[in-house]
């Protein structure tokens, strides 16, 4: 309830004078007609009856709200919040495998591919990564071969022409 603030200063003497004037007028009216005594006892009885009637229904309402409804709503909201923030991320299996392969060191990938080739199956990386998975440039191939292979064995396996090509390539680098 909003109460308008009337903050003007009123002298106490003026207020008292006015109040006593009204009290004199009120006193002239004599005592207020008394309310019969039994009314008060009756008022208590009737009020108690109404409290009984209201509180019996309300008791159920309150207990239901306190024990079931409120915890239920809180639980559902908590569940939804949890679901929103803590749900496991669901990526496609293909993405996961690709991610794992991409994270593997090169040598591990090579060993896997070699094992699979020896067993006679298709290279899994080709299945996963597509046709271009094994398309490497000559430069990449040469670098890999020089880095991984034994240079002595390499030279022994080359003929004259091959040796001259390797020498020419190295001269360019």
């Amino acid at each position, binding site marked *: 309830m909003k109460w308008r*603030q009337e*903050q003007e200063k009123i002298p106490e003497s003026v207020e008292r004078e006015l109040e006593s004037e009204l009290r004199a007028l009120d006193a002239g009216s004599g005592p207020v007609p008394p309310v019969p005594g039994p009314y008060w006892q009756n008022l208590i009885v009737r009020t108690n009856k109404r409290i009984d009637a209201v509180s019996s229904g309300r008791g159920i309402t309150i207990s239901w709200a306190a024990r079931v409804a409120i915890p239920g709503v809180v639980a559902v909201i908590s569940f939804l919040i949890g679901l929103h923030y803590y749900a496991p991320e669901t990526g496609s299996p293909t993405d996961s495998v690709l991610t794992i392969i991409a994270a593997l060191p090169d040598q591990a990938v090579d060993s896997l591919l070699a094992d699979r080739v020896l067993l006679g199956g298709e290279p899994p990386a080709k299945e996963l990564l597509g046709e271009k998975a094994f398309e490497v440039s000559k430069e990449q191939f040469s670098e890999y071969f020089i880095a991984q292979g034994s240079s002595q064995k390499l030279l022994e396996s080359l003929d004259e022409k091959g040796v001259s090509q390797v020498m020419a390539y190295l001269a360019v680098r």
Partner: protein
Amino acid sequence: MESHSDLELVQQVRNGKRQAFTELMRRYQERIYWIARRIVGSHEEADDVAQEAFIKAYLNLGDFRGESGFYTWLYRIAVNLSLNAVRKRQVVNYLRESDIINRLLPQSEDPVAAFERAEVHTRLELAVAKLPEKQRAVFVLRFYEGMTYEEIAQVLKTSVGGLKANFFHAMKKIQEMMKDEVASGAGEDT
């Protein structure tokens, strides 16, 4: 039971002792009734407001934190219910002089003397009933209940300065209305 303070009785009610609330009702029913009666202007409505006030107090006892006195809290409920009751009905239609005079007439008394006494009282009651509701509440609590401004401020949750102004303006209006009544009565006599 009499020796218990209001707060002790409230605590007992909270602990399930219903009889303690009956004791609280016994303590305050007359004051609550008269506050309501003076704001709403009729016994029937005051009776209903008094019951409603106690029912509301009982059901909301959990919200009572003891920051103010129990009676202050109860008065607040009663005043608000009374003002709501006033708003709900049409004051002008209800407050016909004949109704009020009939209600105020004591049953076993000289009818003429009773009428004369009731008439003056009716003038005051009529004047109070014509006040704006906020001024009426302040006037009733201060004039009839003898409450201090600080106590009324707690009941109505407003500032003491505003209450003083409300009370003063209420008294001025009542004074003017009663003077007008007297003047118009004298005019009719001549």
